[in-house]
């Protein structure tokens, strides 16, 4: 049953990817990308990664779709065909894809219990999480406690990305024609 669900989901993902490639209407591309994210969230649920599925559904399908639609409001919605030949981008894409597939050959079989990653610190976390942190959800205790530095880094990445986008989008506007708001910004800054 799980294999059937996987086949259906992955086939739909491939169909939507091809659709995005040939679609010139960017509005349709944004909608297709939202559908892609929802399908991806379903795949992640099949993989028992509900946390990631939640993030994918809300960020990928929700917030980024809205932000992309907001961008389309500012630019034209038809993508002009490129004058250059698509040969080199195609070669780069195929080579990258082939390298990734080649990389998966070196991985141990999917879902086996005696993978190297399951033998390092994971057994300790699983055994000691409740005793040491009173948190039964090992994902949370690993992310926020055992691997707290990594999550601090991730939060800083989000902070940096947010500040970067705000600087780009708001800095340009200051040179624009909205004079009264500019003086306000200048005074507070």
């Amino acid at each position, binding site marked *: 049953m799980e294999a059937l669900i996987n086949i259906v989901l992955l086939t739909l993902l491939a169909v939507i990817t091809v659709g995005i490639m040939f679609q010139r209407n960017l509005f349709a591309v944004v909608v297709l990308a939202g559908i892609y994210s929802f399908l991806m969230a379903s795949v992640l649920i099949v993989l028992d990664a509900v946390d990631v599925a*939640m993030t994918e559904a809300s960020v990928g399908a*929700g917030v980024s779709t809205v932000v992309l639609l907001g961008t389309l409001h500012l630019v034209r919605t038809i993508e002009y065909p490129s004058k250059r030949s698509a040969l080199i981008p195609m070669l780069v894409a195929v080579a990258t894809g082939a390298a990734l597939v080649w990389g998966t050959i070196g991985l141990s079989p999917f879902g086996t219990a005696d993978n190297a990653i399951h033998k390092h610190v994971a057994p300790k976390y699983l055994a000691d999480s409740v005793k040491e942190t009173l*948190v039964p*959800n090992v994902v*949370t*205790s690993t992310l926020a406690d055992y691997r707290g530095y990594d999550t601090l880094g991730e939060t800083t990445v989000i902070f940096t990305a947010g500040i970067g986008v705000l600087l780009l989008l708001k800095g340009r506007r200051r040179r624009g024609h909205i004079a009264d708001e500019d003086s306000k910004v200048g005074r507070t800054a």
Partner: protein
Amino acid sequence: MKLDLILRIGTKLLLPFILLFALYVQFHGDFGPGGGFQAGVITAGMVILYALIFGVKAAKRIAPQGLVERMVPLGVLIYAGTGIAGLWLGSNYLDYSRLARDAPYGHELGIFAVELGVLITVAGTMTAIFYAFVDRGR
């Protein structure tokens, strides 16, 4: 605006449940799937949905732009501050053992504080980016 009556009423009905779900994901993250990242995005999604249906002005009344932009660094400061609190109490950076009398309770408290920081930064960043995009369009 009368034509989108169903959307407006439906959104009004949905909003409290979205916020409740975000809080559930946040505070139940110790037991079930979820945590600060997910809850933050769902909270931001609620504000964005409100802005889509009722307009950005209305959304900025419930989530003022200044507040949202201050939340971006505030969450990181809470996270890093939790680490420094541990340092102050004599353990390592981001070691929550001394935050409470018993080490396990300290860890529980530390995880709570850290997840709160993540929630604030993620919700603030997502909403601030959305506001920035919308403001460019006008």
